[in-house]
């Protein structure tokens, strides 16, 4: 089976760069599954999980992204994400305390952070993957 190059890039560094079998991205209008030979697309992403599968459809890695963009062409898929966490690094209880502290100080810019933290918990609880 063919492979597709997958780059996951954050502003601070290059997080993932390898050939993989399939990627599932949280597109703005719904999840997008990408196989080698996908048509050319530029899409923006919502906060959610990026799943990376190997050729034999085993889950290699899964990341949480807080939104960003994806550029896809038949040979390559590039994801630009503002912040990236590996799903295994996320800890539900610490995110919940983070939400509480964020809610405690009433600033204008916390709303986005709370929204993203909620999405993180959603991603952890999600059973669909």
């Amino acid at each position, binding site marked *: 089976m063919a492979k597709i190059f997958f*780059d996951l*890039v*954050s*502003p*601070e*560094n*290059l997080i993932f760069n390898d050939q993989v079998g399939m990627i599932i991205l949280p*597109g*703005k*209008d719904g999840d*997008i599954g990408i196989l080698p030979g996908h*048509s*050319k*697309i*530029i*899409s*923006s992403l919502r906060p959610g999980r990026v799943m990376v599968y190997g050729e034999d459809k085993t889950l290699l890695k899964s990341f949480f992204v807080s*939104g*960003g*963009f994806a*550029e896809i062409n038949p040979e390559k898929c*590039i994801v*630009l994400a*503002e*912040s990236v966490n590996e799903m295994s690094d996320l800890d539900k209880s610490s995110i919940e305390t983070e939400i509480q502290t964020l809610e405690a100080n009433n600033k204008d*810019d916390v709303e986005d952070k709370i929204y993203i933290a909620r999405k993180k918990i959603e991603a952890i609880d999600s059973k669909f993957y």
Partner: protein
Amino acid sequence: MPSLKDIKTQINSVGSTKKITSAMKMVAASKLRRSQEKAEAARPYSSRLEEMLSSLASSAASGEGIIKLLTGTGNDKNYLVVPVSADRGLCGGFNSSINKETFKLVKSLESNGKNVQIMPVGKKSRDFFNRVMKDQILESFVDLNVSTTGYESALNISNKLQDLYFDEKFDKCILVFNKFKSAISQEVTQQQLIPLDISNSEKKEQKETSSNAIYDYEPDEETILKDLLPKNVSTQIFKVLLESDAGEHGARMAAMDNATRNAGEMIDSLTLKYNRTRQAFITKELIEIISGAESV
């Protein structure tokens, strides 16, 4: 003529200064390496973003709201100048060249009848403009430590800038920063941040049009562009902060290297002076003894 003891103290003090400057050089060298790596790591993101943007930008006509980051307000009256300097000194002309260039830019804009406001980043330029044009400072950012706080610090500046822009506080925003050319040389550069200046990337785009032509956009071009533009502002700022950080360490390394060398030269010449003076004293004493013995 100074006494031997005076010269000795002078030699010692220059020697300890030399130790400090050479230690600072070492620290700067290792920090330079680290911040260079950071700047290197940030490059893929910003270059990808720029490519995406340039393929999208052509599709944007004039519009309201966020699109204004690209098209401008239509006015050319109020300018915001953002000098990016370091928080600390002892790095040669690094900070003063930024301040000088910004000062010149502000004056030339003012002589063309524009309103100019300043938003200094870094203690050294804040202090400078606090002295010379205090009433024009809109806001200042200090103690950023971009190498430890990372993207967050760029995000703060970018959010502030966009708030001000959409409140119509300014029409154009110009960054003045030190571009990192090599470990020993930096170049003072002006970059127009808002509205976005895509003329640089346009040439590149023309080459790639054939391969870039047929992308599907999801949800649609305008929505993506609206997401992309604010991100691009913060990414540009992040890039500038990283470059300036690397440049600062490079400049400090060069300055400290010079200082160490100068201290070495000074010690050499002082040692020579010390030896000569000592010899003069010995000769003088000998003459005294001999003439004393003769007179007996």
